[in-house]
């Protein structure tokens, strides 16, 4: 006779499949002495809303894989993950006399590891990652465990102990482990009373009323070593550079260095997209590749504001090439130059509460996210008959190119937009343009009292980019002088579009939008315009549109955070 307990163990130790011969027999049992843990990332919704899905998965996968390793080492049973929540149990399938202290150590290790991981990941996943932490909740008692048969049958826990553990997590605090009185009692029996501190305020738990709980802190002597690795080396390098540039070692934090590393990687990714196109679709060699531009005397960025900017016609080879950008190996000296340039940019930001380098990174991240969500033809995913018909495939891609004004198939434009995000508030003084003009009348004069801060930021960024030390980097990124000029045109118009308080510029943007997207109004700039549909990605351009990016359409990504979810919970 096979007992329920044996069935559960058999399911867990096997391939995780339900025996169809025993369909009527439930696979479930009651386990009397267990501790259940829930862990949830505080602020995950807000954090993830500003990132690409792939980055969200990098975070969750990294965290969960690390937790799994700890669980394996501590003999903790991982039950499942649900979104950003991790659930584990001790005391089953085999009884564990010290189920409470095993789980307490596990939760403590996970909390500690989470702190390390988020710091390490900040240079990959961007600002605010280092500030992420988890809430942990533990409760001990009996648990029903088993397998609900049906499609995708899986092992699950049921019962009041599970619900209470979930409440311990949800009513807890970020970076802390909250345990119920039953877990506290079990820990005392396991001689671990020293790990407990009563929570001063009682908590109201749905269905349970008011509960007294405890904060857990495992007392242990072992110390975790340094994380090491290349990320750490990059971070140290960025830290050293920043200290030299700012000439004030005390004001530079590791967090700042991590954000610089992250910004550098974002830029490198976009540069690779430009470079792969050069490699696959080279232009005729030019004898004199002098890629440099300096503004003429008396001219300012404002003189370069355009109603519309031309973009290249669709080229299927370029679109195909850009998909393989990860194959580009950037030479070490160029990579170092990019890092140096980003570090200089970071150092040019003032330590304002808001308009600082971290803000620039937030904007850059929003730009990258928006760009990633612009509809694009996934050429590599086109299947069936379409995949065989190159002509149809290219036609689809060309239509999307036109519909999105070439944004998805123009790597130079995407590089320019990301670059603009990074440099748009350089040297911001933490005051409005009106106040800036009062405090620095000579600066206001130079920029004709229009978009003073924005033009100043542009000039500083450009001056450094044109310096001799970045000559080789420029030649690597821009194949021709024309490319450099188009890049400048894009960043000048994009950064000036971030001045949302200039009434004249605002009106220009509104008028331009009307002309671009409302066919009933006369269009003096480009013709004919798009015809819009809301039903399909690929069936909305009966009229071929002109190639032009409507500049400064009022799409200031500074306000992107206002149109992403506000929720602060996990």
């Amino acid at each position, binding site marked *: 006779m096979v007992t329920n307990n044996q069935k559960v163990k058999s399911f867990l130790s096997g391939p995780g499949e339900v025996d169809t011969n025993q369909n009527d027999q439930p696979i479930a049992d009651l386990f009397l002495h267990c501790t259940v843990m829930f862990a949830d990332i505080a602020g995950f919704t807000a954090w993830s809303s500003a990132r690409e899905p792939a980055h969200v998965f990098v975070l969750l996968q990294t965290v969960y894989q690390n937790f799994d390793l700890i669980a394996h080492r501590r003999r903790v049973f991982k039950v499942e993950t649900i979104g950003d929540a991790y659930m584990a149990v001790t005391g089953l399938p085999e009884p564990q006399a010290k189920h409470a202290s095993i789980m307490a150590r596990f939760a403590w290790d996970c909390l500690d590891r989470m702190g390390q991981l988020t710091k390490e990941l900040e240079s990959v996943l961007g600002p605010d990652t280092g500030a992420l932490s988890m809430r942990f909740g533990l409760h001990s008692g009996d648990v029903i465990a088993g397998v609900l048969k049906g499609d995708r049958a899986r092992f699950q826990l049921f019962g009041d102990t599970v619900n209470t553990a979930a409440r311990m997590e949800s009513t807890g605090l970020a970076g802390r482990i909250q345990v119920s009185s039953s877990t506290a009692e079990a820990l005392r029996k396991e001689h671990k009373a020293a790990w407990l501190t009563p929570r001063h305020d009682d908590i109201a738990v749905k269905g349970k009323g008011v509960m007294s709980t405890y904060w857990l802190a495992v007392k242990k002597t072992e110390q975790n070593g340094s994380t090491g690795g290349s990320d750490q080396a990059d971070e140290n390098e960025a830290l050293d550079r920043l200290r030299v540039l700012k000439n004030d070692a005390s004001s530079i934090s590791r967090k700042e260095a991590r954000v610089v590393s992250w910004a550098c990687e974002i830029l490198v990714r976009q540069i690779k997209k430009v470079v792969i196109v050069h490699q696959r679709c080279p232009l005729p060699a030019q004898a004199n590749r002098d890629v440099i531009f300096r503004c003429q005397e008396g001219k300012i960025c404002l003189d370069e504001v355009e109603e519309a900017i031309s973009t290249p016609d669709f080229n299927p080879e370029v679109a195909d090439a850009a998909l393989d950008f990860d194959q580009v190996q950037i030479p070490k000296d160029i990579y170092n130059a990019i890092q140096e340039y980003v570090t200089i940019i970071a150092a040019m930001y003032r330590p304002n509460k808001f308009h600082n380098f971290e803000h620039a990174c937030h904007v850059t991240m929003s730009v990258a996210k928006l760009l990633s969500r612009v509809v694009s033809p996934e050429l590599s995913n086109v299947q069936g008959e379409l995949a065989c018909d190159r002509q149809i495939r290219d036609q689809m891609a060309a239509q999307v190119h036109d519909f999105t004004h070439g944004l998805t198939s123009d790597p130079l434009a995407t590089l320019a937009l990301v670059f603009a995000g990074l440099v748009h508030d350089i040297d911001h003084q933490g005051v409005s343009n009106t106040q800036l003009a009062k405090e620095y009348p000579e600066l206001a004069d130079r920029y004709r009292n229009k978009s003073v801060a924005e033009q100043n930021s542009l000039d500083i960024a450009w001056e450094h980019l044109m310096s001799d030390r970045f000559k080789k980097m420029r030649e690597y990124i821009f194949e021709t002088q024309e490319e450099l000029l188009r890049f400048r045109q894009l960043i000048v118009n994009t950064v000036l579009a971030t001045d949302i308080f200039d009434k004249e510029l605002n009106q220009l943007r509104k008028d331009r939008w009307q002309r671009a997207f409302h066919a009933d109004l006369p269009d003096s700039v480009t013709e004919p315009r798009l015809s*819009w549909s809301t039903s399909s990605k690929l069936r909305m351009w009966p009229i071929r549109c002109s190639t032009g990016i409507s500049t400064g359409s009022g799409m200031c990504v500074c*306000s992107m955070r*206002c149109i992403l979810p506000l929720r602060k919970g996990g």
Partner: protein
Amino acid sequence: MRLFDEMYTAFKEGRLSSDPSKFWYQGELDFFDNYVIPLATKLKECNVFGVSSDEYLAYAIKNRDEWAERGEAIVQEMLY
């Protein structure tokens, strides 16, 4: 919050003529109504994000409503 801090600092230093705490609640509402929501509406209209083009407008309206409800209390919290 950070922008409020920056502007409040500027006010205390005499570099901003008005006390931001006096206009912050209404100012944010105006920013939603006159800038963010029209911008999100444009994103929806232009359809450049395909099937998820209306997502940003929905978030903007939701965030605006949340600010309308909780904004005054948040401004008070920011002052302390």
